[in-house]
């Protein structure tokens, strides 16, 4: 009995240790207040230009509340010039209720889950032998590559956008400014989006 007692105790200790390592929904979050403070109090929605075309389009489809919500998100914000230069009736007339579905698909193609800083994308590109695939909230993916010192994003239809200003930190995520509007592939163009559902 005495011989087996230490054995049992050590087994219990290992089991407890394993539980704490694996974590669960009840695990106490180990948040760093310093990092949170550095991000500031303003949400992404509050920090964007309220008259800018990206925010106006988001407002037209009810995504302004998303950008002011809990997040966290990584948002790729095209410039107003990029919106003006973009092709497609939906982008040019984002306030039209008939274009809501298309605008929603385009905007959710610019919102990524979690906080992805420019360095994180760069590291993923290096690990991925020159490219990194990024999931979007719309269910599609973007491909990131490096072009000189800048990050180049390519949409499913081959359109490219360069990150012009990175790592604008906010309380519910991060904003990267880009110089073109990225349009997701049309539904049914391929089975890619469906494959993600597996």
């Amino acid at each position, binding site marked *: 009995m005495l011989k087996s007692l230490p054995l049992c105790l050590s087994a219990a200790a290992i089991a407890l240790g394993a539980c704490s390592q*694996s*974590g669960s*929904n009840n*695990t106490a*979050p*180990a*948040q*760093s*207040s310093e*990092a949170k403070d*550095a*991000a500031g109090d303003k949400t992404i929605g509050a920090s964007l230009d309220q008259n800018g075309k990206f925010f106006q389009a988001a407002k037209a*489809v*009810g*995504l*302004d*509340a*998303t950008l002011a*919500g*809990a*997040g*966290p998100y*990584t948002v790729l914000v095209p410039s107003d010039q990029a919106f003006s230069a973009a092709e497609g009736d939906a982008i040019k007339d984002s306030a039209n*209720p*008939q274009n*809501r*579905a*298309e605008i*929603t*698909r385009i905007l*959710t193609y610019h*919102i*990524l*889950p*979690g*906080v*992805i800083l420019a360095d*994180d*994308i760069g*590291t*993923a590109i290096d*690990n991925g032998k020159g490219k*990194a*695939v*990024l*999931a*979007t909230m*719309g*269910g599609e*993916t973007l491909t990131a590559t490096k072009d000189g010192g800048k990050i180049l994003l390519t949409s499913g239809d081959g359109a490219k956008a360069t990150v012009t200003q990175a790592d604008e*930190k906010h309380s519910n995520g991060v904003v990267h400014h880009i110089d073109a509007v990225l349009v997701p592939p*049309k*539904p*049914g163009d391929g*089975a890619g*989006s*469906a494959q*993600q*559902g*597996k």
Partner: protein
Amino acid sequence: MTRFLLAAGVAALAITAPAASAPHGGGHDQHKRAKTQGDKGGHSARAQQKGGHSGNQHAQRAQASGRGGGAQHTQRAQQHGGGKQVKQASRGHEQKSRQAQARPKHERTQHVRQAQARPQNGHAVRTADAHRGNNDVRIAVKDRKHDRRDVQRELVRRNEAFGRNNSPVLTLQDVRHGDRDVERVRVAERNLRWNRDWDRDWDNRDFRRVAAYGCPPGLARKPVACMPPGQARELLGRPLSVVRERVVFRELPNRLRYVYADTPDYYYRYGNGYMYRVNRESQLVSALMPLFGLGYTAGQPFPAAYSNYYLPAAYQPFYPTTPYSNYRYANGYVYQVDPYTGLISDVDPLLGYGYGYGQMMPMSYSVYNVPYQYRPLYYDTSDYYYRYAPGAIYQVDPTTSLITAVAALLSPGLTVGQPLPMGYSAYNVPYGYRTSYYDTPDSWYRYANGNIYRVDPTTQLVTALVAAALT
């Protein structure tokens, strides 16, 4: 040898000529007697026939039979009572005339149309005009001179050709101004041919399978198993009656009825993977909605090729598999499938696929269903309800049931044990957790839908849920 052949030909002609010129079809007075009038130069036709309006029919057939060349031969048909001597100038024409009579109706109609198309080609217009008097029916040629009977006859002929396939039917006014309407007639005839070709192609396909699956078989293996977009775009601006001939319309899935609700100005029809918006006033298809999902709708079999398109883990708690329903996901839509019959029961769109802001929340979403990690943030109040549907948590007006905002976006998410999906190669943990959960050679950490997961870099498997980042 040549002489021999020539002599044999002459002999054969001598033997057969009387037989050819003899009356046929006993009991009818409609025997054709043709006599050439070589001295008239070949640009007028004249038919004389005794015995009423049947001569007019012969004249038309004779016109139809003379389709071979551009410059038409002059013919004069005379029919005299009492067995007058008849000269037949061309036995070949007689045969052609008889062949024309034996042809199917639609073929004859084509010949008539060809004959009518001559004016467009610059040939002389030949219009048969029957005059009755002195037991003679005389068919004369008038060049661009239409009297009222001619116009009416042309009207009947053209409408016989145009009236099919819902092509526009000409009016008297149209024919009266036939010269000005040449282009219109040409377009109408082209459309008629196009319709006929399309119908033939359609008939060549396996219509039963089309009816069963809603899509042509040749496209059934493609991701979206329906009409190619180019063909579908051609239907824009066309009357619904025409579109109905080419598209098998089906009942709209229940969930999509909220998305594509009829209005006083428009109503919607679904078929072959497209939603057609029809203008109530003009009955024209004014817009073509995007393809949804796989192009299949309720009542159709869910294709076996897509049976492994399982629901993303994040959606599974909200679409639990039961003995009565399975769920599949494809191209932004959740399909409810009857496990026994394999038929699609309903189709649920995700945000951005026809669903979202401004739409009505379906009645089936009356129960609060926000995922647990988001409940402290989004709970029902007297001002707003919050409901989860695939892809998002929606803010809903409780009085109108309209979606007033997208409160949060949700990705398909991760579950422990699954391979890391494509697109999560970049580190994305929120600020406050970066000091605790950072990538090492042994462990990666990834954020999804309010949770932080640990990933094995070697196997690329999600090995644990390590923190709830929203609480």
